[in-house]
């Protein structure tokens, strides 16, 4: 049987080569499908890897509390109703922070309160600046580095701020902006520190610190009628081993503080590194749909062209049967041919997917696509499945041909 498979492969190669244009066009359908799969997976894998690396870099001892139950970001209605969390009042409070701080094994706790509003200095203003109100502990938890000046601490004034390197350039035209004044929602703030450029727009805080302005929690509360509106609480455990107990303790402490209402989620490890952006999932879902549709269309193309091939080679089928080929031989011969189209399309798609991924990541994004054997396996696996699935019907049809009828057909 092995010898026959080799023979079928040789045969498929010869016959596909003799109809090169047709074969290439048929492959294109599968190529597009597999390319989109590769693109999605490599980019989302790359994004995940960025965050995983950051968490690992910090010693893997970070947990994060977010309001609401575990976000079901993969659900389509979540994508369709944009940012449904952002308008709701967060269920996390300053009291929760204090409760977490008491959990054994917790080394540091920092809230992240995002304040909406404009940042302006002179004529320059920026409306999409994340204004982060937090406590001094954030610098150690999130591994931020201050290039000039200092981070906010317990003794700094309420009208001082630390700004990201890019924001400094945007507002003042220089990254040496210590002592300069700027306005947040009309209030004056003085720059006391400039963060070192991190170039990590994707992180578990969902904040691009290069563009952020960081103020104290007290200042943040003053923008919000004196109430803290905490989007996220970052927790740092003393070491990696104590992280599970910290997560459990946090859950228990918050459960008690929230009257056993499960309106928060504690994330650590892989949950933390899963991309949370709604847009990201919207794009991924759209690409998946494109991939699925083009794979089906590509598969129909394969079936179509295989039916043509079978019709064209009816006489050959008759001859082969008369010379001793069984139905199984004929099925295998045509199945391997469609499989070859599928795998060919899969290989080109895999390469094209990575080319696209690199073009996208180099031009728009800040991280590289991920290479992994899972993606390669999935790309090839999908193309094999498409090749077999859509080649099966034409192959069986070929094998069922009556040899006498087939031999009578003239070309």
């Amino acid at each position, binding site marked *: *049987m092995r*010898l*026959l498979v*080799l*023979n079928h492969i*040789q045969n498929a190669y*010869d*016959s596909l080569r*003799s109809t090169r244009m047709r074969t290439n066009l048929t492959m294109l359908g599968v190529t597009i499908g597999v390319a989109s799969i590769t693109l999605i997976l490599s980019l989302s894998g790359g994004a995940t890897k960025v965050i995983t690396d950051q968490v690992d870099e910090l010693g893997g001892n970070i947990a994060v509390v977010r309001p609401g139950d575990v976000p079901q970001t993969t659900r389509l209605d979540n994508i369709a109703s944009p940012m449904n969390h952002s308008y709701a009042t967060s269920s996390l409070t300053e009291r929760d922070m204090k409760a977490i701080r008491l959990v054994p094994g917790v080394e540091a706790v920092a809230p992240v309160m995002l304040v909406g509003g404009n940042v302006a200095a002179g004529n320059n203003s920026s409306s999409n600046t994340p204004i982060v109100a937090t406590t001094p502990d954030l610098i150690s938890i999130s591994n931020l580095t201050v290039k000039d000046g200092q981070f906010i601490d317990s003794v700094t004034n309420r009208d001082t701020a630390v700004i990201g390197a890019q924001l400094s350039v945007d507002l003042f035209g220089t990254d040496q902006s210590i002592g300069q004044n700027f306005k947040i929602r009309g209030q004056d703030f003085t720059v006391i520190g400039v963060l070192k450029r991190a170039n990590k727009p994707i992180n578990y805080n969902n904040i691009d610190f290069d563009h952020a302005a960081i103020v104290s929690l007290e200042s943040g509360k003053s923008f919000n009628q004196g109430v803290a509106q905490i989007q996220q609480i970052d927790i740092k455990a003393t070491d990696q081993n104590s992280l599970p107990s910290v997560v459990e303790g946090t859950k228990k402490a918050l459960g008690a503080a929230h009257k056993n209402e499960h309106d928060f989620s504690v994330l650590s490890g892989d949950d933390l590194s899963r991309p949370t952006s709604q847009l990201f999932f919207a794009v991924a879902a759209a690409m998946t749909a494109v991939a699925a549709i083009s794979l089906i269309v590509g598969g129909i193309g394969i079936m179509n062209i295989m039916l043509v091939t079978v019709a064209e080679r009816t*006489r*050959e089928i*008759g*001859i*082969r*049967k*008369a*010379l*001793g*080929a*069984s*139905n*199984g*031989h004929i099925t295998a011969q045509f199945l391997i041919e469609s499989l070859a189209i599928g795998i060919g399309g899969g290989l080109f798609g895999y390469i094209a997917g990575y080319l696209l991924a690199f073009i996208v990541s180099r031009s728009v994004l800040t991280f590289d696509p991920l290479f992994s054997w899972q993606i390669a396996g999935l790309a090839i696996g999908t193309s094999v499945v498409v090749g077999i699935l859509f080649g099966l019907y034409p192959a069986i049809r070929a094998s069922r041909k009556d*040899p*006498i009828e087939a*031999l*009578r057909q*003239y070309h």
Partner: protein
Amino acid sequence: MKTNPDAPVIALRGLKKRYGIGDAEHTVLDGVDLVIEKGEFIAIMGPSGCGKTTLLNILGLLDRADDGDYFLADRSVESLSARRHANIRSEQIGFVFQNFNLVPRLNVIENVALPLTYKGIRKTKRLQLASKMLQTFHLSEREYYMPWQLSGGQTQRVAIARALVNSPSIVLADEPTGNLDSKASHVIMEELSDIHKRGNTIIMVTHNPSLTTYASRVITMLDGKIDSDTKTLQPTVKVDTTKKRLDTHAAEAPKEKTLRSRRPAKRKTIKKGASK
């Protein structure tokens, strides 16, 4: 497969084949009884539409009879699966067709090696055997020609080489000379009688009475039945009936020997086509 050395290679009993349903039903074979011994060279003759080709297809396991028994080497083939049939075609039967039926995509040696593929023989070995077979047909220089680069006689010799490459015990030839002029026809017939002398059983369908001289036994068919058989009837009777039956259908056929043109052959092709 167990083989009884004394058993006939082929034994048919009351073989029937019908096409169509109801009013359109048409009986092609109407009770054929035939016993073929090992090493016979049989020529089957008869007018168009008398069931010669159908009989040959059934003998070659390409078709199944509706009724009656077919024993191949003392074993009924009715009960065997399609897979076994394919296997028997591969191991024991060699086909030669009127229109050659070489695979146009493959070159000569690949065509000849094709039956060996389904016996599971390795490629190098396959090509060696095919090359050796082509040598016996004096076609060694044409090994890498494509089928369309050969003359009719060469093509048919390639087709015969292909039928013989897996050393079948039975060679079935459906008008092997039907598309050839008389000179090429006789070359082909010489080849076939050579094969016969080597001990193969050959069953040949032909329209051309002059070619029956090569055969050891001539069977004439009429309307789905065996009309005469040189083995059971007196030879003189055979000649008379054959001549009479063929008068209406192949009147020019005996003249073909003297006519060197392709015209009679062409006319027969048309007739053959009409019978299908």
